[in-house]
C-alpha cells in the first residue's frame, strides 16, 4: 500500500504535465479532427506522434515512466475515447474513481487536504463534471447515431409534444427545490463552513491561496506574469465566451446534443472548460502546497520542501548560451528573437487562413475568422508556455523588465 502511494506521489509530479499534454493533444487533435477513427490512417499517425513525443520525453523529461505513461494514455484515449460514452464504461470508471477517492481518504495526508472544509465542494465538483460530461457526450453520441441512420434526434421527435406547465413543470421544479433544500440543510448541519483564526495582516499563511474558483488563474501565474495571468487572460476568457455565438456560424446542433455536427466547437470548449479551467483549479487546490510547490496527493505538505528551479529567459538562451555573447544593452535588440517568435505565432492566423484552415476562413468570413483564430491562439499560448517551461525551464520568451512587459 505504501509502495502504491509512493508510486502515485512520484508519478503525480510528472503526471500534471503528462495529463495536461495528453489532454491537450487528445482534445485538439483527436476530438476536433479524428473523432475516434483510430483504425484510419490518421489514427496510425496519431500513435506515431505519440511515440515520437514519448521518445523525446526520454531526452527532455527526467522521468522514464512519464514517457511510457504519456504514450499509453494517448493510445488509450485514442482507442477507448468514444467507448467511454458509447456504453456505460465511462460511468463505471467514474464510480471506480469515486471509490479510489474514498479509499484514499484513509490516508492521513490525503485526508488533510481533500477533507479540508473549503476543498469539499471542489471534490464534489470533480465528480459532477465527470458525470455531466459523460451524460452530455453519451446523449450526443446517441443522437449522432440517429442522424447517421437518417432519423431524427431524440429532442426533435418530441419537440412538438408540449406539456402543461401546471402540473408537469411546476411539480418538477418543486421537487427539485425540496431536494435541494434537504441537501443544503444536511450539508450545513454536517459540515461546518470554513473559518480560520481572526485575520492577522502580519502573518501570511503558506501557501496563500486565492478563492478556489480563481486557483486556475493563480496556477497560470506560474507560467505568466500577473498582467497576463491575472488581468488580460481572464478578460479574454470573458470576451471569448461572449463571442462564441457570433464566431460559431454552424447552424447545426442548435438545441440538441450532438457531437459529430460540431466537433470543433465541442473539442475547443471542452478543452478550455475541463482542462484549462477545471483541471487547473483542481491542481491548484489539491496539488499545490507551501511555496506553491507541487505535491503528490499522498505527500505531506512540507513547507521546507526545496525545488531547485533555474528558469532562464529565451534571450539568455540565445545570446549567452548559443552565441556566447553578453546580453545586448538595448532591449529591442536583446529581445529581438522573442519578439520575432511572438510575431510568428500571431502570424499563424493569417497563414492558416491561406493554408489548412482555408475552409474555415471562407465559411466564416474575415472578421469572425480572425477574432476566433486569435482567441484560440491566446488560449493555446498557455499549454505552449507550460510545455516550454517543463522541457527547457524557459522563463520568459520576451522579457522587457524596463516596462514590466514580460511574456
Amino acid at each position, binding site marked *: 500500500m505504501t509502495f502504491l502511494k509512493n508510486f502515485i506521489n512520484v508519478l503525480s509530479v510528472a503526471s500534471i504535465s503528462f495529463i495536461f499534454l495528453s489532454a491537450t493533444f487528445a482534445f485538439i487533435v483527436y476530438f476536433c479532427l479524428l473523432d475516434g477513427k483510430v483504425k484510419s490512417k490518421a489514427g496510425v499517425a496519431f500513435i506515431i506522434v505519440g511515440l515520437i513525443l514519448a521518445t523525446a520525453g526520454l531526452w527532455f523529461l527526467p522521468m522514464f515512466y512519464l514517457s511510457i505513461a504519456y504514450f499509453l494514455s494517448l493510445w488509450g484515449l485514442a482507442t477507448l475515447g468514444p467507448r467511454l460514452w458509447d456504453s456505460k464504461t465511462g460511468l463505471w470508471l467514474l464510480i471506480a474513481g469515486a471509490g479510489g477517492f474514498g479509499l484514499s481518504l484513509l490516508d492521513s495526508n490525503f485526508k488533510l487536504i481533500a477533507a479540508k472544509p473549503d476543498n469539499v*465542494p471542489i471534490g464534489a465538483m470533480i465528480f459532477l463534471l465527470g458525470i455531466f460530461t459523460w451524460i452530455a457526450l453519451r446523449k450526443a453520441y446517441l443522437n449522432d447515431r440517429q442522424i447517421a441512420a437518417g432519423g431524427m*434526434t431524440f429532442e426533435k421527435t418530441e419537440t412538438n409534444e408540449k406539456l402543461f406547465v401546471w402540473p408537469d413543470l411546476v411539480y418538477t421544479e418543486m421537487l427539485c427545490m425540496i431536494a435541494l433544500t434537504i441537501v443544503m440543510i444536511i*450539508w450545513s448541519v454536517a459540515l461546518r463552513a470554513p473559518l480560520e483564526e481572526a*485575520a492577522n495582516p502580519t502573518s*501570511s499563511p503558506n501557501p496563500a491561496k486565492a478563492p478556489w474558483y480563481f486557483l486556475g488563474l493563480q496556477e497560470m501565474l506560474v507560467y505568466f506574469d500577473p498582467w497576463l495571468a491575472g488581468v488580460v487572460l481572464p478578460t479574454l476568457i470573458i470576451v471569448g465566451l461572449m463571442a462564441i*455565438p457570433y464566431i460559431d456560424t454552424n447552424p447545426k446542433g*442548435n438545441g*440538441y446534443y450532438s457531437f459529430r455536427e460540431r466537433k470543433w466547437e465541442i473539442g475547443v470548449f471542452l478543452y478550455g472548460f475541463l482542462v484549462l479551467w477545471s483541471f487547473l483549479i483542481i491542481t491548484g487546490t489539491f496539488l499545490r502546497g507551501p511555496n506553491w510547490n507541487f505535491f503528490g496527493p499522498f505527500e505531506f505538505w512540507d513547507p521546507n520542501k526545496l525545488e531547485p528551479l533555474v528558469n532562464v529567459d529565451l534571450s539568455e538562451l540565445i545570446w549567452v548560451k548559443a552565441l556566447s555573447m553578453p546580453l545586448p544593452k538595448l532591449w529591442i535588440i536583446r529581445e529581438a528573437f522573442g519578439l520575432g517568435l511572438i510575431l510568428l505565432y500571431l502570424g499563424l492566423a493569417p497563414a492558416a487562413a491561406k493554408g489548412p484552415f482555408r475552409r474555415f476562413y471562407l465559411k466564416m468570413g474575415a472578421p469572425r475568422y480572425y477574432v476566433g483564430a486569435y482567441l484560440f491562439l491566446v488560449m493555446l499560448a498557455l499549454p505552449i508556455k507550460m510545455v516550454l517551461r517543463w522541457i527547457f525551464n524557459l522563463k520568459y520568451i520576451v522579457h522587457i523588465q524596463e516596462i*514590466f512587459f514580460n511574456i
Partner: protein
Amino acid sequence: MTLKQVQEGIVNSQVWKSVFRVGIPNTNRKRVLAVLGSLILHLHPVKVRRSGVRMSYTWCMGGTSFFLFLVETVTGLLLMFYYRPTIEYAFTDIMDLREQAPFGIMREMHRWGAHAMVIAVWLHMFRVFMTGSYKPPREFNWNVGVILLVLTLLLSFTGYLLPWDQLAIWAITVGSNMARATPGAGNEGPMSALIKLGDVPLIHAGDDARFGLIGGRSIGAATLLRFYVLHCMVIPLAAGFLMAIHFWRVRKDGGISGPM
C-alpha cells in the same frame, strides 16, 4: 366532516378565492389560467416542450442556480441582522453567529450555498453549450448569462472577505494583487511606467486599479466596508436585474432550449 368537505370548505371560502382565483387546476382551462393568473408562475409559458421538463436534458442547473441565489438572499438577509462590517466586530460576529445565534446554520448554508451556486452556474453554462443553445436566436441571452456568471464569481469573491479570518484576507490579498498588474492602470502593470508627468509617475500604489478595488494600499477597514456594500447591495441588484432579462429572453427566444 370528512376530509373532502374540509378541503372544499377551504377552497370555496372567500379568503382562498381572493388569493387563488382559479381553484384546483383540474381541467386544461384551469391549468392555463393557474399559470397565467399568477405573478410567480407566469414566468413560465403555459406549455413547454417535453425536453424542457426532462432532467436528463436540462440537468435542472439553471433552476438550481436561481434557487441557490434565493437561498443566498434569504440566509444573507438573516446574517445581516448580526454582522457588522468593521474590523473590530466582523470576526467576532461570525463566531457569535455560529456559536450563539439560533438557526446557527445560516452562515454554513450561506457559505456552502455560495460554493454550490458557482458550480451550478458553471454546469448550467456547460449544458447550454453542449446543446448548442447559444446559437441564433439565443446569442444575446448567452451573453447575459456570461455576465451573470461573472457576477456570481464577484459575489462569491466579495463575500469571501467578510468573515475577516485568515482565509478571507489572504485569499482577497492574492486575488486583488492581480489588479496591481493591470496594463496601464496598475502600478506594476506593463506600460504604466510610461504614464507620467515630467518625472512624476501618475500611476502608483496610491491611485492605481488595486487601490480603487480595495480602497487603500492594503486590505483594511475600507476594503471590508466596500466589499460589504458590493456584496449585499450592488452586485445582487445588478444580478437580479440581469436575471429578469435572462428569464424573459428565455421565453422570447424560443423557450427552454429545444431544437430550433
